[in-house]
């Protein structure tokens, strides 16, 4: 043990046992079956990537003014996406009023960044990425514009004002939260914000012309249906979960019956019910907004699923907590709202986020009852004869798929993050 670390005579370990070669040997070629698997995997990956890259990049059309321009190539027709991008986001919402949904998005961003990110470190990270991505997009946009590039699609798609404002709103939210704490933001987001959002989107007051819901569309409808669905389902889900554990037989039977019924049938049949049966059940002459009808059904549907998630949280609360609350002389409402539910809900945050992801994906079904969510608007625009080309359909679906994936993947990562944070608290 006389060798000092920088003694020249110390032999380096054999090259096959450290570094990339060793890594390859251990992880890819450790045995003959393993080597075969690796080779098969490489072929599979090559085949998939080759197909995707060929379609989306190598043979894709980037600049064209209509479908005929796209038909020259075998790959994706990206100009279709660039030209229709604002429709995909807002549907047929009037051009002059689009600042309203944008403001609604911005307010949500300003409230959600501080609500979801924990501590200044995470908030800084979120802000950094938001600013970095926005900056790159804005710079690219002006670069294309000033160099007079033919690639105008990008210029049409990127809205620099919105991106700058998004960074500003998120930053203000993050800074404000340092002073006020999360509770204020939670109250704002769950109580005040929905009212503001409805007023802004629907209008009908001086200064804000009325925009009927049949003009809403695209991502706007997807987000509205998913968010309202989950927020409205939340109190209902708590009530059903408590009802299922109640000692009162009629209330328990009703809760179990409702939950099992809704979970036992496909969402499609419930949506069908809203579109063909609901009009029958209302007195003649009554009429319901189509979007509102879908919202009610989606909320009832997700309430049943949320109830089961929340029930899981309630079951995880140790009995001692209930008994301690009883011993303190709290009544049922106090016991639940001050002792049990805060703990139970905290436990099931990942489950709630997962239900939200499920609901977000399920909103695509509203296209079957004639509402134009993101997928619905994409489908609607595919039939535009100006953009007819053999690959338009697949391009549109791939783009919609990418947007859905982006949202759902982001949320599932967030839920894993929360799960880790909660688990870390328990380990300590």
């Amino acid at each position, binding site marked *: 043990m006389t060798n000092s670390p920088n003694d020249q005579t110390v032999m380096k370990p054999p090259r096959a046992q450290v570094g990339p070669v060793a890594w390859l040997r251990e992880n890819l070629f450790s045995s003959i079956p393993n080597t075969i698997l690796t080779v098969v995997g490489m072929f599979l990956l090559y085949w998939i990537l080759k197909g995707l890259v060929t379609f989306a990049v190598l043979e894709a059309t980037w600049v064209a003014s209509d479908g005929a321009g796209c038909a020259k190539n075998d790959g994706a027709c990206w100009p279709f996406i660039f030209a229709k991008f604002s429709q995909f986001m807002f549907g047929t919402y009037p051009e002059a009023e689009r600042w309203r949904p944008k403001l609604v998005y911005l307010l949500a961003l300003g409230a959600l960044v501080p609500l979801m990110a924990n501590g200044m470190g995470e908030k800084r990270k979120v802000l950094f990425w938001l600013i970095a991505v926005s900056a790159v997009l804005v710079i690219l946009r002006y670069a294309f514009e000033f160099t007079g590039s033919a690639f105008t699609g990008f210029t049409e798609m990127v809205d620099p004002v919105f991106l700058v404002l998004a960074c500003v709103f998120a930053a203000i939210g993050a800074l404000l939260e340092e002073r006020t704490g999360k509770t204020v933001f939670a109250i704002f987001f769950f109580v005040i914000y929905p009212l503001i959002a409805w007023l802004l989107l629907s209008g009908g007051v001086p200064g804000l012309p009325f925009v009927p819901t049949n003009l809403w569309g695209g991502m706007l409808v997807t987000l509205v249906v998913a968010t309202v669905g989950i927020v409205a389902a939340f109190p209902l889900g708590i009530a059903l979960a408590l009802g299922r554990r109640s000692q009162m037989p009629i209330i328990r039977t009703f809760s179990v019956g409702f939950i099992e*019924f809704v979970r036992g*049938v496909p969402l*499609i*049949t419930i949506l069908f019910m809203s579109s063909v049966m609901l009009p029958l*059940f209302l007195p003649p002459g009554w009429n319901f907004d189509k979007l509102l009808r879908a919202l009610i059904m989606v909320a009832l549907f997700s309430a049943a699923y949320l109830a089961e998630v929340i029930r899981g949280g309630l079951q995880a609360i140790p009995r001692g907590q209930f008994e301690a609350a009883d011993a303190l002389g709290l009544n049922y409402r106090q016991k639940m709202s001050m002792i049990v539910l805060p703990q139970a809900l905290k436990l099931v945050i990942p489950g709630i986020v997962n239900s939200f992801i499920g609901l977000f994906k399920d909103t695509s079904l509203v296209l*079957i009852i004639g509402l134009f969510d993101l997928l619905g608007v994409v489908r609607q625009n595919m039939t535009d004869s100006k953009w007819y080309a053999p690959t338009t359909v697949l391009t549109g679906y791939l783009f919609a798929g990418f947007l859905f994936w982006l949202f*759902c993947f982001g949320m599932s990562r967030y839920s894993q993050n929360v799960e880790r944070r909660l688990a870390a608290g328990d380990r300590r």
Partner: protein
Amino acid sequence: MASRADTLSQPPVRAKPAEPSFLNRREVRQALYQIALVVALVAFFYFIVTNAAENLRRQNIASGFDFLDRVSGFDVSQNLISFSNTDSYGRAFIVGLLNTIVIAVIGIVLATILGFIAGIARLSKNWLIARIAGLYVETVRNMPLLLLLLIIYFGVLKPLPGPRQSLNFADSVFLNVRGLYMPRPEWLAGSGIFLASIAVALIAAFVVARWAHARQMRTGEQFPTGWTALALVVGLPALTFLATGRPLAFDYPKLQGFNFTGGMVVQPEFMALLIGLTIYTGSFIAEIVRAGIQGVPKGQWEAARAIGLHGGQVLRLVIIPQAARIIIPPLTSQYLNLTKNSSLAVAIGYPDLVNVGGTILNQTGQAVEVILMIMAVYLTLSLLTSAFMNWFNTRMALVER
């Protein structure tokens, strides 16, 4: 101790708690809440039933289930039992139901296979294989199933070439825009013996396995059950097949004019729905399987190795039986989800229950009855599946000693 008994025998004088007022008593409160719920429900149903009756009367729509016997007048593109447009609505409904069951059963089998492969692959020591499985799971899980179905159907299967330019696999399997054409097996004389021999081989293999297990329990001697079963199941039918003079022929699809004749065809709607349901549910099952295997404590692996079991035995005898207990309950709900999700067939035109039901609804206008029937079927399927899986789960459950 005696003094304690004394105090117990004389109940201490306690101030009687003040009797709560009538409305504050627990039983009264509970009764009131429940009566309120019942009244609200009765009022709600009275409201919708009277309205529905009034609306139906105004629109001249009959109610009741008489329409099920009327002639349907439409065709269904895929039917397991014979169906033509002169058959009744009731029969059409059953055709749709059977189509739903077919897609659900095949989908469940395939999704389970794919899910187990992907779930185990995600835990593989092989870095590349684990990454590919992860890529598959994370991509598919985060996309709506409806979109997946539309991509497969409209993006992949519809742009396929017509029959004349079919993709040709060894001149026997053809893939084109009208579907997948495959040779159809034709059973000639003597095939009954061949089919019977398969059944006999299966039963024999089962009997041998039970005998070998019983003997191992009794004496500890092992028997090569796997090889024997393989020899029985492959060998016996092969022998009878040759002995009876090869009673199996294939009817190959042939291109005649603008279309194929002969063979059998899998319709593109069925293929799209099956592929979509399989890869979507498979990605969820993969996650369940991964969590199940990771849920088995590491010590179990090490203990199994320590008593000298080899790789396959470790999995088969120690890990899988324990992982199965974690896997089965969420797997059940995935099977139910797949069955319910098959209703998305309506978006690509596969004639499942909801699709056929929708057609009946449009023709007869009897929305309430049709939707109630569809919901009743799904509820029954759900309850049956969960009953079966509960039974299976109790069989697999840990027997606590």
